[in-house]
């Protein structure tokens, strides 16, 4: 029989059992397919104010990039030296820079180069990174070795230094390249050395996914290797790639500004935030004329900030663990 008086030190408090009822298997609605991760992510995303704030800001930036004429009718290249360095005033709310350019007009028109460089570089880097990374992880063996070592080679040279060397090489073989040529040169230089980061992320994601049950299930149903890769593995490996791409978009915009500041990015004739910030530096050395620096730098920072916040929001939405 059970000993009714417990031994010393053996008293136990037993909490009353509270059980939550499990739904019966038969009650689960199977007429609809389960929500995809994208739909779940969107549900979580649309409740985030950070997502909406950054999206609206980026939408405004996009309109500025596409239709700068909607915001200003002043020519960003019309210099009026008699008004050099005049401060903000009615009609010219951001004032004038040293050359007598209207800073507001230049800030509006400068958006295009910066944003196009950010978007295009990210697009190229993501496509290259996604496919090289996915193929490396999926096939493994010597394919993986070659792609990974190649990525290491490009990754080992610091991006900024590599971009400077690349651009100075491009300057020699492709001088006087005009507006779009100048933009493309910066894109090439950044993309040529930026892709390994995405390759590593994509490779890691595919590595995790390729041995999961649903991939085996697809294979056992007769899905071919390539079909497996493109319809089952890559779509599921996308979330970390998208998050990294969104954040690096901002990084590339900053990199363009830095290259222009070093005098090797966009040619000086191109109206861009980076060029204007670089040109503003000597004017603000003593602490005067801060408006010349503040507006282009502020516009750039706000745009980059929006991309970073968007990346954060998307990451939180795509990662079920981070959801509250």
């Amino acid at each position: 029989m059970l000993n009714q008086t417990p031994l010393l030190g053996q008293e136990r408090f037993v909490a009353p059992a509270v059980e939550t009822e499990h739904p019966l298997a038969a009650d689960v609605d199977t007429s609809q397919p389960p929500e995809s991760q994208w739909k779940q992510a969107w549900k979580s995303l649309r409740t985030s104010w950070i997502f909406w704030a950054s999206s609206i800001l980026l939408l405004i930036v996009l309109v500025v990039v596409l239709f700068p004429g909607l915001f200003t009718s002043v020519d960003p290249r019309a210099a009026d030296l008699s008004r050099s360095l005049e401060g903000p005033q009615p009609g010219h709310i951001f004032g004038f820079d040293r050359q007598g350019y209207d800073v507001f007009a230049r800030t509006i028109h400068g958006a295009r180069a910066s944003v196009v460089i950010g978007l295009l570089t990210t697009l190229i880097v993501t496509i290259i990174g996604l496919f090289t990374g996915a193929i490396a992880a999926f096939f493994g063996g010597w394919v993986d070795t070659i792609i990974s070592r190649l990525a290491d080679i490009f990754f080992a040279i610091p991006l900024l230094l590599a971009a400077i060397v690349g651009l100075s090489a491009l300057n020699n073989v492709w001088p006087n390249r005009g507006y779009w040529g100048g933009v493309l040169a910066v894109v090439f230089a950044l993309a040529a050395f930026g892709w390994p980061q995405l390759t590593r992320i994509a490779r890691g994601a595919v590595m995790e996914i390729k041995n999961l049950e649903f991939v085996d299930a697809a294979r056992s149903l007769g899905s071919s290797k390539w079909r497996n890769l493109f319809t089952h593995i890559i779509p599921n490996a996308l979330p970390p790639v998208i998050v990294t791409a969104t954040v690096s978009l901002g990084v590339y915009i900053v990199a363009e500004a830095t290259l222009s500041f070093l005098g090797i990015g966009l040619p000086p004739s191109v109206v861009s935030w980076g060029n204007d910030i670089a040109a503003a530096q000597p004017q603000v050395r003593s602490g005067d004329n801060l408006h010349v620096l503040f507006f282009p730098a502020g516009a750039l920072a706000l745009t980059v900030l929006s991309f970073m916040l968007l990346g954060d929001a998307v990451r939180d939405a795509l990662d079920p663990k981070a959801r509250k």
Partner: protein
Amino acid sequence: MWRYIVRRLLQTIPVVLGSTLLIYALVFLQPGDPIVALFGEKPVSEAARAQLEAQYNLDQPFLIQWLLFLKGALVGDFGISYSGQPVADLIARTLPVTFQLAFMAMIIEAILGVIAGFYAGIRRGKIFDSTMLIVSLIVIAIPIFVLGFALQLIFGVQLQWVPPTVGSNTTFTNLLLPAVVLGLVSFAYVLRLTRTSVIENLTADHVRTARAHGVSDSLVNRRHVLRNSLIPVVTFLGADLGTLMAGAVVTEGIFNINGIGNLAYQAILRGENPTVVSVVTIMVLIYVVASLLVDLLYAALDPRIRYA
């Protein structure tokens, strides 16, 4: 363990070879004749040209030039710059300054970033956390040269706490502001990384077990949460050394420091090809060695990782 180290060392060989070949091709496979550039407007005599080409190995095929460069680099001989100075001397003069700068930046970013990230993580969603997140985003979003410029203006020109430019006088106090500027962006990344890692670890099983055993909050946070959160931070810092050395191009320009970043930048602008390839090779080596050390540190930090 030894087998792992050997394998890891063997893996770095193609990376170093490939990176130097890549940069060598970018720099030397360009149109334009460096010998003509050396002589400026004056005509070049055949004998002088032949002698100079032999001196810079320009008479050899491209791949042989690269191999000769590697052969010299192995014993610390990086050749002679077009202006006549041994490149090794230029590097020996500038590298210590940049090392000092990058090292100070790394200490600053690591200590401040880990402390701020840790407190932000354990107080997730509170005022301090939100402030730190916003600060880190702003630091990343504003180009570093604008930040450097603003700090130089405030602390160097207006308040005059530190000299606005450093020049040749590279003392600790003079390099403090440049080091802060250089480390700012990485500080933001360290902060965010530590915070994410701390938040992840707060819900880990071993932390709950420790709490269930009645270990005090501060002890759990320090011993069990913080220590485990440092592993990704160490990885980041290892890879970051290379970024800092390259970021020195901008910082050294703003504060007029004669470091390797400035040397590289001036060399690229002036077409000093031997100097450019040598500096980039040094940077690649630093990156490779740093990431090797990080991989080995892993085993010490995380006993779950065992090398076959």
